[in-house]
C-alpha cells in the first residue's frame, strides 16, 4: 500500500528516466528485430541471386524455396535461424541493467547525496512506506517498458514476412517477455537494495556492480585458486556450481546465461526447465532483494549517510571480504601467467592483492564520504 503522496514525490525525481526507459525499451524491443529482418532479407536475396556461392548449404533449386523454407531447421535447405534470433534479449537486458541501476540511484542515492534523505525521514511516513514507494515506481517503469515493447515486438513479427516463426511459439515468446520483465525488475531491485546501505549514489552504483558480479565472480576465484593448487581438480564440479539452482537464484545474469534461449523453442525439457527453474529463480531473487532492501533501509543508521557502507558495526567484515577477494584475484591472476600454474606465483599474487586491497579498503570504508553533501 504505497502512499500516493510518496509515489508522486518519487515520480518527480525519476520521471525523466522512467519515460526515457519506456522509450528506449520500445526501441530495444523493435529496432533490433527490424534490423535482423533486414539482414535475413539481404541473405535470402543474396542466396536467390547467387545460389552458386551457397552450394554447400542449398540442396534444391533456390527459386522453389519460399521464405519459410529458410527457417526450417529440420529440412535440408539452408537454415538462417530461428525465432530466437529475432528476440533481442541481449539489448533489452543491457538496457535494463543500466536503467535499473540509474533509477535506483536517482531514487535513493541522489536523496542521500542531498538533504532530501533527511527530509524524507522527517515526514509522517514509515521507512517501509518510503521504500515500497520507490520499489513500485521503478518496477512499474520496467513493467511498462517490457509490456509495451514486448507487445510491439510481437506485433512487428506477426505482421512481417516471418510471422510463421511464431506458430506454436506464442506462449514461449510470452514466456520470454515475462522472463525479461522479471530480469529487469531483478536488476532494479538489487540496485535499490544496494542503495539501502550504500551511503550515496556512487557507493550505490559500485555496490550494484559488485552484487551483479559477486556470485559468479567468487566461485570463479575459488575455482582459479583451487586449480592453482591442484590442477587436476575436477572441472565439472565448478561447472555444476555455475549451473546450480542456488547460483541461478543469486545471480540474475547467471540465470539469463543458463536460460537455454536457443533451445526452448525446440526442446521440451529446456522449455520446462525455463518455466520452472528459470522463472522461479528470477522471482526468488526479486523477493530476496526486495526483502533485504526493505529491511536494511529500515535499519540503516541515518547518521552514517555518506559512507560507502552505512552499517559501521560491520565494516570490519567488509574489510576482510575485500581483502580476501582481491587476494584471490591477485593469486589467480599471477598464477595464470605461466602454464602450468605455479603455487609460488599464486602466493605472490595473493599477498600483493591482499596488500592493495587493504589500502583500498582503508580509503573506501573509513572516510566519511566519496562525494557528499550531508
Amino acid at each position: 500500500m504505497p502512499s500516493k503522496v510518496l509515489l508522486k514525490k518519487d515520480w518527480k525525481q525519476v520521471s525523466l528516466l522512467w519515460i526515457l526507459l519506456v522509450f528506449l525499451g520500445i526501441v530495444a524491443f523493435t529496432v533490433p528485430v527490424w534490423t535482423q529482418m533486414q539482414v535475413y532479407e539481404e541473405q535470402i536475396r543474396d542466396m536467390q541471386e547467387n545460389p552458386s556461392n551457397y552450394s554447400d548449404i542449398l540442396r534444391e533449386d533456390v527459386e522453389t524455396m519460399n521464405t519459410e523454407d529458410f527457417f526450417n531447421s529440420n529440412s535440408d535447405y539452408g537454415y538462417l535461424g530461428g525465432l530466437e534470433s529475432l528476440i533481442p534479449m541481449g539489448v533489452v537486458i543491457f538496457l535494463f541493467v543500466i536503467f535499473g541501476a540509474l533509477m535506483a540511484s536517482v531514487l535513493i542515492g541522489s536523496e542521500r547525496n542531498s538533504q532530501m534523505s533527511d527530509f524524507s525521514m522527517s515526514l509522517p511516513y514509515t521507512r517501509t512506506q518510503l521504500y515500497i514507494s520507490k520499489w513500485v515506481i521503478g518496477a512499474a517503469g520496467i513493467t511498462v517498458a517490457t509490456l509495451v515493447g514486448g507487445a510491439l515486438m510481437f506485433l512487428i513479427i506477426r505482421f512481417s514476412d516471418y510471422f510463421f516463426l511464431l506458430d506454436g511459439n506464442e506462449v514461449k515468446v510470452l514466456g520470454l517477455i515475462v522472463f525479461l520483465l522479471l530480469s529487469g525488475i531483478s536488476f532494479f531491485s538489487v540496485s535499490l537494495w544496494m542503495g539501502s546501505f550504500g551511503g550515496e549514489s556512487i557507493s550505490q552504483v559500485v555496490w550494484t556492480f559488485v552484487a551483479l558480479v559477486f556470485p559468479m565472480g567468487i566461485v570463479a576465484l575459488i575455482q582459479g585458486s583451487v586449480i592453482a593448487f591442484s590442477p587436476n581438480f575436477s572441472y565439472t564440479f565448478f561447472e555444476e556450481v555455475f549451473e546450480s539452482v542456488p547460483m541461478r537464484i543469486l545471480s540474475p545474469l547467471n540465470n539469463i546465461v543458463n536460460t537455454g534461449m536457443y533451445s526452448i523453442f525446440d526442446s521440451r525439457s529446456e522449455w520446462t526447465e525455463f518455466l520452472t527453474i528459470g522463472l522461479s529463480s528470477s522471482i526468488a531473487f526479486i523477493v530476496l532483494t526486495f526483502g533485504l532492501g526493505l529491511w536494511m533501509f529500515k535499519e540503516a543508521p541515518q547518521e552514517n549517510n555518506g559512507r560507502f557502507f552505512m552499517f559501521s558495526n560491520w565494516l570490519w567484515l567488509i574489510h576482510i571480504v575485500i581483502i580476501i577477494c582481491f587476494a584471490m584475484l591477485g593469486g589467480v591472476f599471477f598464477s595464470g601467467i605461466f602454464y602450468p600454474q605455479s603455487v609460488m606465483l599464486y602466493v605472490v599474487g595473493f599477498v600483493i592483492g591482499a596488500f592493495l586491497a587493504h589500502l583500498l579498503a582503508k580509503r573506501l570504508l573509513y572516510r566519511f564520504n566519496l562525494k557528499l553533501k550531508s
Partner: protein
Amino acid sequence: MLKVEQLSKQIDRQTILDGIDFTVESGEIIALVGRNGAGKTTLLRTMVGIIRPDQGDVLYGTKSIFKDAGLKRDVIFVPDSADALKHYTVNEATDLYESIYPSFNRSAFRETLTRYNIENKKIRQLSKGQKALVTLSLAFAVQAKYYLLDEPTDGLDVVAKSDVLKLMIAQVEKRNCSIIVSSHQLHELERIADRIIMIESGRVKAIMSLEEARALSIKWQVVFNDHVPVELLERKDIEIISVTGRVVLFMAKERTEELEAFIDSYNPTLIEEIPMSLEDVFRIQLGGEAHAV
C-alpha cells in the same frame, strides 16, 4: 508537551549525545546553544526521528516519535540549508507540503510569498534570504505544534534576519506552538528565547532563562587605587576581558564569597556589576571563542 528523555548517541565510537534531558512546553521558544560540534544538529535530527538514539527517547505527549511516524505531522525540522527541495519550484513545494500535511494552510503561505515578493522560481534560484523565508514559511504554514530550527538566520542579511525572527515570534504568539532554535546568533536568541539550553560535549550543561543565566555568573568592572593586582590577573577561575590602566573588566563563572572577599581585600575604588549578555554567559560557561556578533 515535548519531552527529551536521557538521550544518548554514539557515532563512530564518539559520544555525541550524553544523557540529554529536558522538557518543552507549548508557546515556548527554546534556544539551543553550544560550541560547534557540541551535538546540537544531531540532537535536533534525533528529536524529529531521523536519527535513532542508542538510549533514551523523545516523547511528544506520551508517544515516542520512533514508534509512531504519524507524530511527525506535528513536528517540523528545518535544516540550515534549503538543500532538500532545491529542485522544486515554490509552487511544487507548496503542493508537496499540502499533500503531506492535512493542516497545511495554503493561503497563509501565499500571503507570506506576497509580502516578501517571492516569485515562483526553483528554490535553488532564490536568494539566500528568500530561501530561508520560503522554507520557514512552508514549515510554519503546516501549523505544527513543534518546530526544530537549525541556524535559521545563518548567513542572512539584516533585513532577512529580522523577517525570519518576526515570522517566528508571530507564529508562537498566534498559535502557541513551540520552537527549538539552534543558533550562534546569541544576540538574537537573548531577545526571543524563553529559556536557553547550553550544550557542552553532548551534555546539557544548563537550562535556564536569560535572567537566571545572568545571575549564575558575574561580570565586574573594578577600578583599583594603584594598579591591577597581578594575583587577580593570574587567577584561573576568571576570564579577563580587558585591562586599561587601573581598570579591569572580567567575568567569573560563579559568584563566590571567596572571590568577593579577594577583590575587597585590595580596597578598590569602584566595583561595578555589569549585566551579562548571552554572549558573555556563553563565553564564560562554554569557554573559548564564540561567534562574534
